[in-house]
């Protein structure tokens, strides 16, 4: 994934620093609470939300189950419509393909629509290394790029910045990249949006190459769909002569009709709108309207490895709406940077360790970046059971086991630092399979309860530092059940 995240510390350390940043906490609280209430209202407007959610899940599951077939069909239909399809197994290959395509045009700058896939592969850095400047045109991406910052949210990468900080960045940095910010720029959102309009317009009007992702690709027709708000997407998709779209292989839907589900659930889940201001759909190239050359770069980059995991593959249903980030109590406090990936929040906690593997400290810690409260699952418009996958990935980190990496089956060793957890689980397994020992242990615990400490010693200390140890009852449940005949004999 993006080089900007290399060497990130584990989640607990990064989050510990973030929660002490008062400005960040305030910005995130304000933004996530604003959108939460709005989303709930937008969803309540449609009485068949549960059915739409289920249909979205089924469409994605069906597609993933026959992904090879739909990929081939998509390739055929895009090609028939005048597009050129490329395949990339990993980030390096995708970056090489895109860089070569841009070089072939002879251009040294490109305009970009916000795209998670190109962030994931670190495309901007790869282009820069070859002397090609990539200009981000989404407002939040622009804020991140000008601020030499990292994205912290899927939909609004600059969510960690408030209007005052944004004004500061625009006033300071815009002149370095092109048209300076207007004199006397204030921090009202309308003025900030206007400054972005003026700054980017000259870039749109002269751009010869546009780079985008896509929200959906329709296999039967070869149609690409980009959902956006500002019109920067339309600019990049319409004005340049060459368009390069970099899209993950899981973004396929089988038929044109399937869009009727996602075009209802995506806007309401992401920006809490009935419909986003602009949606562009194009199929190959159109004579005399828009780019004359269209390249589609399909990327794997860990997706087929994720597909190989029976529990974890549901993460590939994700349509990148970011509703799970906005409701997550952990995300709200820790912020997006602590997740060490372009995919933060609950979905990032299950996606990053699967796309990248759990070898690094940050990726091994991500399945634990959750209280398992389940709010993410509740709001997910394609019903990804994020808590289920989190628990599954925790098990993999602790126990190790067979996984697929780069298409090969490998056996992971149990991770270091989880010895106490493993020992506790082993002890529990033994006790639960030996009823006599369990009973004796429970009685001993009940009788000695006056002497129980309030916190755990040794490796358990960190766990009980923020939790109360449960008090043990005076009599084990099974003894009480036997003594009172299931509670029938006495009131006590």
């Amino acid at each position: 994934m993006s080089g900007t995240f290399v060497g990130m510390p584990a989640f607990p350390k990064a989050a510990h620093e973030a929660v002490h940043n008062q400005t960040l906490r305030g910005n995130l609280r304000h933004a996530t609470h604003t959108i939460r209430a709005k989303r709930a209202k937008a969803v309540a407007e449609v009485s068949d939300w549960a059915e739409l959610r289920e249909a979205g899940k089924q469409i994605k599951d069906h597609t993933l189950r026959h992904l090879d077939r739909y990929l081939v069909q998509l390739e055929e239909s895009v090609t028939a419509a005048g597009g050129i399809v490329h395949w990339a197994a990993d980030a390096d290959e995708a970056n090489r393909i895109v860089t070569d395509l841009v070089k072939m045009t002879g251009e040294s700058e490109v305009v970009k629509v916000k795209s998670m896939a190109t962030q994931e592969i670190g495309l901007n850095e790869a282009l820069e290394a070859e002397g090609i400047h990539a200009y981000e045109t989404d407002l939040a991406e622009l804020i991140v790029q000008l601020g030499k910052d990292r994205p912290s949210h899927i939909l609004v990468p600059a969510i960690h910045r408030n209007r005052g900080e944004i004004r500061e960045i625009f006033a300071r940095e815009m002149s370095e990249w092109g048209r300076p910010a207007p004199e006397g720029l204030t921090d009202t959102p309308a003025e900030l949006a206007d400054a972005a309009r003026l700054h980017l317009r000259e870039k749109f009007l002269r751009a010869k190459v546009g780079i985008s992702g896509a929200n959906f690709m329709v296999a039967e027709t070869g149609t690409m769909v980009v959902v956006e708000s500002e019109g920067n997407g339309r600019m990049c998709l319409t004005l340049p002569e060459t368009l390069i779209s970099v899209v993950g292989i899981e973004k396929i839907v089988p038929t044109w009709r399937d869009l009727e589900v996602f075009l209802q659930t995506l806007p309401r889940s992401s920006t809490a709108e009935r419909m986003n201001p602009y949606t562009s759909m194009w199929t190959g190239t159109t004579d005399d309207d828009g780019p004359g050359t269209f390249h589609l770069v399909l990327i794997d980059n860990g997706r087929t490895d994720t597909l190989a995991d029976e529990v974890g593959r549901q993460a590939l249903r994700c349509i990148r709406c970011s509703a799970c980030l906005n409701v997550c109590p952990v995300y709200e406090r820790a912020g997006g940077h602590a997740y060490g990936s372009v995919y933060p929040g609950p979905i990032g906690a299950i996606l990053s360790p699967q796309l990248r593997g759990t070898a690094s400290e940050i990726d091994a810690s991500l399945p634990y970046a959750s209280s398992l409260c389940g709010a993410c699952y509740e709001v997910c418009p394609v019903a990804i059971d994020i808590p289920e996958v989190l628990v599954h990935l925790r098990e993999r980190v602790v126990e190790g086991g067979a996984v697929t990496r780069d298409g090969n089956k490998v056996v992971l060793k149990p991770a270091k630092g989880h010895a106490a957890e493993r020992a506790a689980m082993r002890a529990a397994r033994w006790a639960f399979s030996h009823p006599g020992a369990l009973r004796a242990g429970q009685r001993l615990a009940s009788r000695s309860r006056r002497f129980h400490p309030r916190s755990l010693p040794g490796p358990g200390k960190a766990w009980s530092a923020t939790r109360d140890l449960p008090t043990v009852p005076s009599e084990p449940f099974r003894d009480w059940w036997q003594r009172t005949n299931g509670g029938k004999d006495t009131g006590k």
Partner: protein
Amino acid sequence: MSTRDVILGRVRRALADVGQDDTPYKRAVDRGYLPEHGDRSVEQTVDLLAENLADYRAIVHRCEADGLAALIAGLLAERGSTSVAVPPGLDEEWLAATDVTRVADRSESTPHELDQVDSVITACAVAIAETGTIVLDGGPDQGRRRITLVPDHHICVVRVPDQVVSSVPQALPRLDPTRPLTWISGPSATSDIELDRVEGVHGPRTLEVVLVNDRTVSGN
């Protein structure tokens, strides 16, 4: 082996555990959701379109067919527009009452030239009431995608009730995916500053939608 074959091979191996699944696509998805939300008369559907367009800050006007030219002339004058981009197949009657400079939608025009044009006027392919959306499909009365993008003022004429559907599921069958489509729901906007919506970024900052009553013409 090509990367294409590598990826397809990985997909097939990854799915080895699911076994053969011969469920045809038609039966794989339970489409228990609604074709439209609520039960409305034709008039009510048009009213809902107007309401939802306005809710997302489009300026909505309604008129009869014989009042359209005067209305359009008024809108251009009010805006102070001196030039208007015109798709090749636009009904000439619509501009009969104005003398602003017409700028033809030509393939040779550069984006910079379009940036000098004050307004653009088009028809649409379909309008969706529940979401307050108009859809352009690049037809002769709508022109190339860029003419409705670069000028800052877009006037879009919707023939009601013929071009209006209730919902997204009703709109898709009326559209041709081989054409370049642009779905527009209000003027350009952003939620990127503190997740609050602000209108007016790169697309036309003013969107005016004219709902022209076409019932007598269509005989519907």
